[in-house]
């Protein structure tokens, strides 16, 4: 089965319904090969252990999700999946399309941000921030106002500081869906038993990589209203680094220098601001309106 995502052609042993099919049954060469195969237990012989379930060397990243699968991501072109007996494909795909594909994008030399990318005019806005800050809600809200979602969760940035389009879905929690008046009855659950759903999003034909113009760091605190505070000059570097997808992956894969260089380049050309919303209540319009105004004021 053949797909495209992040401007890569992908061949996969398992079906990836979230991704765009490229229509072809047989493609001579694909950029990325996803195979069901044996992945040795116990990590990488000559690699560095980065966590209890994580190893890396210069070419490879080895990841175990206990009771789900072992993944081996190699050279920016191959992902091997060794499923645990009896595990469902949904569970495999969650971690394949998250950590494993994220590692592969690092291996291809991209800066990978943890956030959502949304097209605003001919440019791109990226929203980053900790898990639970409301990034996906914001992206879905912008989509409901007519803006295209470029990437959800994993946002690769190339050397030209363009965000690459991912695949046309967004992960949506039940609470968030209700707030956005989205009926989850017909949506697929991310994993069996999960209250998190896969929402397919419309994707205009030929959506290409877009220059990143704005990055907002979303957070929440006890304040009463949404605050927007620009981050200037040298202060911009750190938040970009901190909001990199799985910073730990970089260590073992010896990608730090490249990564820092890309962070620096990106920091020099974007509008970066912290956006803080009141904790405990989520007034989406009160968040989106000032953001769109800020983007309009800094075209």
């Amino acid at each position: 089965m053949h797909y495209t995502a992040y401007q890569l052609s992908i061949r996969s042993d398992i079906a990836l319904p979230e991704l765009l099919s490229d229509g072809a049954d047989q493609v001579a060469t694909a950029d990325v090969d996803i195979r069901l195969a044996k992945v040795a237990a116990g990590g990488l012989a000559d690699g560095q252990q980065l966590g209890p379930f994580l190893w890396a060397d210069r070419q490879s990243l080895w990841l175990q999700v206990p009771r789900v699968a072992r993944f081996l991501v190699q050279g920016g072109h191959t992902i091997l999946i060794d499923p645990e007996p009896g595990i469902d494909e949904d569970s495999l795909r969650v971690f394949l399309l998250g950590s494993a594909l994220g590692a592969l994008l690092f291996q291809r030399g991209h800066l990978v941000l943890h956030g959502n990318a949304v097209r605003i005019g001919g440019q791109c806005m990226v929203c980053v921030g900790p898990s639970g800050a409301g990034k996906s809600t914001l992206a879905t809200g912008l989509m409901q106002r007519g803006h295209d979602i470029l990437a959800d969760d994993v946002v690769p940035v190339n050397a030209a500081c363009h965000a690459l389009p991912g695949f046309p879905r967004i992960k949506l929690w039940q609470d968030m869906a209700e707030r956005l008046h989205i009926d989850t009855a017909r949506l697929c659950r991310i994993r069996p038993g999960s209250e998190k759903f896969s929402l397919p999003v419309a994707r205009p034909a030929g959506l290409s990589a877009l220059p990143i113009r704005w990055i907002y760091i979303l957070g929440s605190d006890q304040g009463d209203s949404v605050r927007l505070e620009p981050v200037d000059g040298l202060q911009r570097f750190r938040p970009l680094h901190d909001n990199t997808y799985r910073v730990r992956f970089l260590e073992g894969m010896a990608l730090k220098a490249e990564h820092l260089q890309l962070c620096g380049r990106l920091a020099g050309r974007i509008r970066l601001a912290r956006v803080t919303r009141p904790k405990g209540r989520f007034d989406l319009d009160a968040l989106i309106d000032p953001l769109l105004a800020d983007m309009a004021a800094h075209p």
Partner: protein
Amino acid sequence: MGGIYWLASYPKSGNTWFRSFLHNLVTDADTPAFIDDLRTGQIASSRSWLDEVLGFDSAELDADEVDRLRPAVYRWSLRDAQIGYHKIHDAYTHTVDGEPLVSREATRGAIYIVRNPLDVAPSAANHWQLDLDATIARMGRHDMALATSRSRLLEQVRQRLLSWSAHVLSWVDAPGLPCVVLRYEDMLDQPLDSFTRAAGFLELPQDRSRIEKAIRFSDFKLLSQQEADKGFRERPPRAARFFRLGTSGAWRQALGPAQIQRIIADHGAVMRRFGYLDSDGRPI
């Protein structure tokens, strides 16, 4: 080196106060630390800590699956150069694999802060924005847990609290766990003794002037004033204040006779053990 000392307590029992002391003790600065800047490690239930060490999203797992992985995450701290001091509200429980949630190997020990449940109730009612009866009922529920929502993403993973009594006993009677119990009331009445004992257990400096300064810099009035001036990140959104009274015995004004009786009925045995009831079963 590495490994973890847990700063364990039921919610609203003085954990943040103790962390403020600890931070001031370690930094030994000339001025008190601001409450939003306390750097005394993480909370055991921090999703970002788990995700960072795991390398994949805990949000894609259910609460039981997460619990099974937590010991391995804490064990990873054994590779750190320094000892970690981390807050925890989970009761001392075991995973389905029979392993202590906090990992026996990773755990150097625990400070357990216990506070009179008669005083915990009004404080927790404010924190949880519940009425007193509902709060007291929660404190008696053996299946009580925090951060249980499955329909949205929370910054913390689920924490099993158990009942107030079961929480206390889970820690102080955990087999093989080096544990020092600090009574909140003793921290108020005999601060130098209490905090010196804690510092010694935690392998931290114990010289008197330094401890006294850290006690002064973490004085409740000061913490409360800082919150009044600048706010506090850990205040729940709907509660007016995080730092309320910082006293013991306020329950005499806050609780009615039936509420007092209910707490004693639920927790009498443990209250007696920690000196909150006299031999006739009357609150002290």
